[in-house]
Structures are given as C-alpha cells and as structure tokens.
C-alpha cells in the first residue's frame, strides 16, 4: 500500500547483519520536495534504512517503491543508474574524492551520467555559487574547511538534478554554526528545486529544518504522518 502522491515508499523492511538485526519491520514514505528527518539514537538502524531506501543495500524482506517502480526487482546496474540519475548523497564527512578539485567533485555525478566535462563543470559551478563555495572550485578537498567541504558535497548531491537527496548525518562533523548554514542551504536549495530530502540525524535541532520527523528505534521506523 503506497501513500497517495508519495515518491519513495518503504514497507515492512527487515535487514540483519549477521545475527544483529538492523531493521525490524521499518516503514517510510516521502513526497516530492519534502524534507523528512530520520531520527533515532546511535545503532537504531537509521543509516541502514537510508541505505535501503537509496538502493545501496538490499533489505532481507519488505518492499521499496520509487516512482512506482519496485527497487527489489531492479538489477544492480539499474539501481546504480537510478542512484546516478535520480538520487543525490551527502555523508557525514563529505567523502569528496581527495584527488579531484572541488569543481571536479561536484561535476563527477554528471560526468558519470555521460555529460561532457565542460558542460558538467559549468553546471557544477552554478550549484557551487548557490552553495556559496564557487571560490573553492580549483582547490582540493584537503585545502578547504570541513564546513566548506560539506557545502561542496551538498552541491555535488544537487548537481545532477536528483529527485531525492539522502543525507546521512551531514552536519555530524561540523560545529553548530557551520552545521546550521549547511542545513539551511541544503533544505533551501532542495525545496526550491522540488527535491525530496531524507535527512538522517540524531540531533534534535536538525529536525527543525525538516517538514516532518520519522523516529527509528530498534530497527522500527515510526512514520508519524504516513504510517502504513
């Protein structure tokens, strides 16, 4: 059963790593342009939920539907293509490719989708400008601060015009001032581009930037508005 108008829906997800259950019947849904904060204590299974939703990890049981397509029926190559074209990612430590310059990092998803280098870098610079890091284009990740790096990572996530951005603790390694600025820019940019954001965090203040909270506890997601 899919909530009306939802873009991405998960139902009754189960996932274990060895004998340790990470998800135990979690359900979730998100609408286009919506920012949903996935909250919960460490080890509750929120990152696993994010990885399942993004098609990075295959759940042991349960269904995930994106834009009417069932993820579990897709091949690895199809899911990779989906991640390249429809999804964007921001992780706790940015995880920018250290050897590429910032603009090359932002352009990378576009280039992986087949865009020409110059076109990709032009688009990348537009997003970097929006994220207020356009002056860092020629620098390498090691030469920029943590907050700047995260903004570059957000620009990278948005550059390929995704439908959903998955952000896993995007401010976890930043001070509060930088963290809030990154969240502000991420959510503003996402809303203006009608991009849904799945924002995994364990910080309550981060939830203030979301439209809705989902709490994960012991591998179960309590989706307050769209429980199925």
């Amino acid at each position, binding site marked *: 059963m899919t909530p009306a108008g939802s873009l991405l829906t998960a139902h009754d997800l189960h996932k274990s790593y060895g004998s340790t259950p990470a998800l135990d019947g979690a359900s979730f849904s998100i609408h286009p342009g919506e920012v949903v904060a996935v909250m919960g204590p460490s080890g509750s299974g929120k990152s696993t939920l994010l990885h399942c939703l993004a098609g990075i990890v295959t759940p042991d049981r349960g269904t995930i539907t994106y834009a009417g397509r069932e993820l579990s029926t897709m091949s690895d190559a199809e899911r990779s293509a989906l991640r390249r074209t429809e*999804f964007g990612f921001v992780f706790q430590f940015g995880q920018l490719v250290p050897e590429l310059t910032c603009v090359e990092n932002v352009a990378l998803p576009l280039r992986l989708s087949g865009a020409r280098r110059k076109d990709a870098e032009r688009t990348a610079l537009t997003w970097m400008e929006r994220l207020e890091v356009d002056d860092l284009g020629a620098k*390498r990740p090691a030469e920029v601060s943590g907050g700047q790096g995260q903004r570059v990572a957000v620009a990278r996530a948005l550059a390929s015009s995704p439908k959903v951005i998955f952000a896993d603790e995007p401010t976890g390694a930043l001070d509060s001032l930088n963290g809030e600025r990154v969240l502000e820019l991420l959510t503003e940019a996402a809303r203006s581009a009608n991009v849904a954001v799945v924002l995994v965090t364990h910080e309550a203040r981060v939830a203030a930037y979301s439209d809705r909270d989902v709490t994960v506890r012991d591998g179960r997601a309590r989706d307050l508005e769209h429980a199925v």
Partner: protein
Amino acid sequence: MSLLHQKHAPAGEDHRPAASPSWTPARLRDLGLGIRFAAAGGREGWIRTLLTAAGVGLGVALLLVASSVPHMLDQRDGRERARTETRQSDSPDASAARSDSTVLRIDAGTEYRGRSIAGFLMRPDGAHPVTPPGVAGFPGPDEMVVSPALKELLDSSEGNLLRERLPYRITGTITDAGLVSPNELRFYAGSGTLTPATGGHRLAAYGDNGPPEPLSPLLIVLIVIISVVLLVPVAIFIATAVRFGGDRRDHRLAALRLVGADIRTTRWIAAGEALFGAVVGMLIGLALFLLGRRFAGAFVVWDVSAFPSDLVPAAWPAGLVAVAVPVSAVLVTLAAMRSVVVEPLGVVRNNRSRRRRLWWRLPLPVAGLAVFALTGKVDETTPVDPYPIAAGAVLVLVGLALLLPWLVEACVNRLRGGPVPWQLATRRLQLNSGAASRAVSGVTVAVAGAVALQMLFAAMNDDFNRITGQDPTRAQFYTSSEHVTGDAAARTIKEFRATKGVDKVIGTVEAYVTRPGKYAKDEMQPTTSLTVGDCATLREIARIDSCRDGDTFVVHPRDKKMADWVDKTARKGKEVELSSYTDQQNGVKPTRWTLPADTRTVLTRRDPLGKENWGIMATTGAVDASTLPGATTVAQIRIDKHVEDAAEYVWNTAARLDPGMRVVTLTSVARDRQYASIQTGLQAGATATLILIAASMLVSQLEQLRERKRLLSVLVAFGTRRVTLGWSVLWQTAVPVAVGLTAAVAGGLGLGATLTWMIAKRVSDWWLFLPMVGAGAALILLVTLVSLPPLWRMMRPDGLRTE
C-alpha cells in the same frame, strides 16, 4: 566530588621530568615507544607489522640465499675437483702405472630426455682399487652405484628406456660427497672385460691437483652486473616493505600529537614501528631461509639445485644484511615522514608545496657512468677489479630508481582532461604519485638491468657461442667406436639402421694407411685415411657423381698442399700398408692392399659433423671393412623426429653395442660451459626477483585499495559503475608503469651501451629491450587483474557502515 569540581590539581608528586632528555636518549626512547606500539598496538598494529615483516622477510630470505651463492659454488667446485682424476702429467691422456690400487676406467656418460647422465665403466687392477668420493665399495662386474636422483629415475616408469641402457644391478648409492648437486644423475658401473685395448684409461687417484680454471674477466663483469641487477630490486623491495601500512599508522600518530608529542617524536616513533617490523621480518627471513634450506634439494630451478649444507651465507654479506635492513628501515621511514604532516586532528599527506627536486637525484646515475668511464675498457686477459664495476652499476640502477618519482610526478602533472576513469587515475597520481612510483621502481630497475644484461650477452655472444659447423638437419647423432671393429663394424651400422626411429645412417669404417718403404727416424712416413662405406654413404662425405659397389676413390681436400700429401700415399695402382699403431709397436707385419689403377679422384664434402674427410675411400665391395686393423666405426645418424623417444633408442643401441662408444649430439652452436651456467643462473635469479616484485606490487595495490575502501563505497553509492573504477585502477597502475618502463628502457640502453663499450664490443641489437618491456607489462597486467576481485569486494556498501 569529582575531579571536575576541584579548583586545583590533586596534591601529589610531580612526575614531569625536570629537563628534556638529550638527543640520543630521547630518540632511543621514541624508537622504543614505536616498538611498543607495534608490538602492543592491537590487531591494527600487528597487521601493519606483519605486512612489513612478511615483505622484509621475503627480501631477507632472498638476500641470504644470494649471500650463500659463493659458498655454494665453492662447495660444488670442491666436490667436482675431488672426483676428478688426479693427473699424472700435463697431458690429460697420460695413464698411471698399473698397481694394486689402480683402476681402468672409460667414460660411459649418456643423455636421457635432454638430461645429461655422467657415468663410468670401471675395472680394478688389483685388490685395493681407489674409489671415487661418495662411493663406499667398488662395484663388481655388471653392478653399479648410482646417485639418488638416478636411482629415482630408474625406479620410475619414466626411466623404462634408461633401464634398458644401464642394465647393471644397483648395489649402492653415491653419497653427497660424490655429487655436485642433489639432482645430479651419475653412476659408476663395474666391468669385467675392460682393457686398455678396449678404451680403458688407467687412473691411480682422485682429486684435481691443478690450478682452478680462472674465470674470464668478461664473465666477471657479467656476474657482477647480474648480481647487482638481481639484488638492487630486492633492496628496493625491502625499502618499500618497511612503508607498508604507513597510512594507517599515520592516523594513529595524529592521536599522539593530540597528547603533546612533537613532530620529530612522531617521526621517530614511526621509525621505531618500522624497525620492529624490520627486525621481525629479519627473523621471518631467517626462518624462511632455514626452512627453505632444509628442502633445498627439492627445488630445481633451471636445472640448478643445491644441498642444504651448501647454503651457508658468507659472513660479511650476512652481517651487512643484519645491519643494513634495520638501519634502512629507520632511515626510509624518517625520510618518508618528511612528506607527511601529522597534526593533532589528522594527517595531511604530501602537501603540494613539496615538489620533487631533480638536482639531488641526477648526480647518482651520472656518478655511476663516471665510475665506468674511469674504470676504462676491460679486455679478455687483464685481471679485472669487480668492485668499481659493481659500484657503477649500483649507482646507475639506484639512481634510476631515485629518478623515477620525479619523472612520474613531472609526467602526470602534465596530464589533463580525459574520461572519468582517466581523470580519477591521473588526479590521484597528481595528488600522490609516491606509492605508485615506489611500486614501479622495482620493475624499472629490474627491466633496466635486464636490458643492459641482454645487450652485454648479445655483445659477448660470439665470444662464448662457437659455430660448430655441425649440420643437425643431416644428422642428429655422431657415434664412433674403436672397439666394435671387424665383423662387428658392419653389424654396428646395420643395428643403427634397424633402430626404431632412425631415418638414415651414414656408416663408415675408418683406418689409416701408410706408404710402404723404409724411412729415417726424422722422416715422416706418408699417411692417409682409408674410409670404407657403401655408395650412398660415400656420397655424403665426398663429391662423387657415379658410384658402383667395388669402386674406389682418392678424395682430395680443398687445400692443394694437403691434396699433394694425400697423393703421396694414395698412388693409383700402388700398394699401401694397413696396420694399427699397436701392431706397429708390437712388430706385427702389416698387410698390404693395392689401390686400383682406375681409381677416380674427387673432392671432399663436409659431413654432418662438419668434418672434411679425405684420403682413400672404398666401397664395401672393394675393401672388406672387417679386415681393417685399428679401425674406427663411425655412424652419423638422422632420426625421425615424429617418432617418440627416437633419440633414446639410438643411445640404447650405442650402449648395447659398446658402453664406451662416443656419442655426440650434433648442434649448430656450442655454448661455453661457464657462459651457459651464468645464463642459467640469470634465468633462475630473474624468476625469483620477478616473483618478489609482483608480490610487492600486489601488496602496495591492495593497501591503497584498503585505504580507499570508504571512498570506493561512496562512489558506488552515487552510482559509479564498477567498470569505471576498474579502468581507473588500471590507468593508475599503467601510467606510472609506462613512465617506469620508458625510463627503464632509456636507462637500460644507456647502461648496456656503456658496459658494451667497456668490454670493447659493439652493440649488436638495439631492440633487445622489447621482450623485457613485454615481461614488465605482463607483470603489471597480472597484478591489476589479481587486484580486481578485492576491488569489487571493497566496492560493496558495507564500507559506508560506521557502526
């Protein structure tokens, strides 16, 4: 109340030292701390230590083997000399006087499926015959003592045909003292019929009392270069191994910076960790060497094997290894840490401002070439000092290894654009090409050395490879026997013709004839040869147009003077005397034979052995070969190569007819024995070095991948195709390798040309580097292919998990 609520620190002793310790104790303390971290650093620390130790261990084991080579060669040479007959005089053919301990002996060596088997038939003169080293009791008639390897071969199904050739009862085994190497095939068989007349040579004692055969100065140059070429990559490998796992260690050092360690302290702690790994590695290397030594006899590389007791490292190289390995571990780590900034909150590697400098790298290879120039040319007679040559080669090759990081950096910094895999690879190399350069430096030095060696080998080829003049397309075997004569001579040729796999036999019976008459003591009696065979046979050794049984020919050599000398004996219509040397000595009246007046004169033709035969040639209808005194029966045999073991059947027939029959395998080129063994040694050493280099590259590659596990997972998360990353890894390896191989070819050609100039030769082929480059490239491809499965595994999403 907790400590946080206290206004002052708790009272007690102040444990801080009054003053900082001086330099040496401080550095020793840091090294000790590093050793403690490596030994008690938990799983991570041990993994790093074991990586280093495994690498160093392999290198040290190889160095210990290399340092055992002089002792091994001494021992082998000693045993070879001990079993050689003691010469009675300068003449090698001089026989000993008969006594109770003397022995008659004839060489009965053979070949079996390409392997040489040394052997002798022996008959004692008295009750107390001397025995060769390693032989406990003298074998009786039809008995033999054999080496363990030969016994094994004879006992196996593979030795069926050989058993037929050596039908003697095995009564004992030759011990190590009588063998050069464990895989040697050797036998001593007893004979009840051997006499001097049937080829027996009398010997009184064993042990070569002559001076050892000196090595040619040219070969000394070759040996020195081979040693350097094989050992420098091993040293580079050890230097690389002490840096294994360095990235992980540096992150731990950041934590030490946080609690107050200064930069110098962290560097020395890192050096201490590397020192511990190197020392453990030396122990592992020693253990590997001792273990491998026990099984040394079982390893046969390019037909070379050694007894465990032969593998004893020489004191000074072993001592050098024991000192140089730990010291270089410390120095290499200190040097490596200079390009790493360990900060309390993390590690910055290879900050971009530090570009590699050329100025201090270039003098080394230039100095090497200067050493060669100062050493000057080496000729074949002047004794040569190997040390300057070794020093020059080390300087050039190590200099090349030092040039490589600069060269790779200079090249990759110019690379721009390209598809994503290319961009990922080149950017990675631009950020840090050190690891890639280190991994490739071993291959570079090995290929450069191999190119130089090949050029040297090619230049020396003519000196050590003799064109024999033999024609293996006309016959593959030449047999001769002075003992199967008379009726047996014809039977011998007949039996060879009937042997399985034999295609054609050029069979002749040869004797000497003299011109009758009285001659003064100082006058030379005209002599020539008489060769008897059928028409087909005679056509193979003389230019005969028409021939019928009963015909005779006078065969002239091309040289007019020699032809005149033949004609002095071979006078048409006149008599010649037939008698053997023994008959002449014993005063036996020679028989006479008249050369028919209608004998035609023809020119000689080279036989398959490359020999020109001249004198009188007679068909079997003209001369009865069985009546010739002191004759030699010769058979030149062509085999059908499609018949399996045809060569073995020929050997078996020869052994059955006359165990002392001389059998020569015809070959167009004969290699000098020492030169051949050096080439074999190079092949064996190169195999070991290439395996080591491949292992080194694989470890470096896997380590780099492991360091990037999380990043690889992230790239997969946003949809990067596996093939994209696979190509990126390939480019990342291929680019430095291409640069390295280019440098290797340039350096190798330069070194080769210089060395060739030194030995006063000319470069015969500038394209010899192609197979070496191919081998280097194949090695890289192999390493990349082997590292792909771990790459696929590391691209799994597990890398994203943090909890």
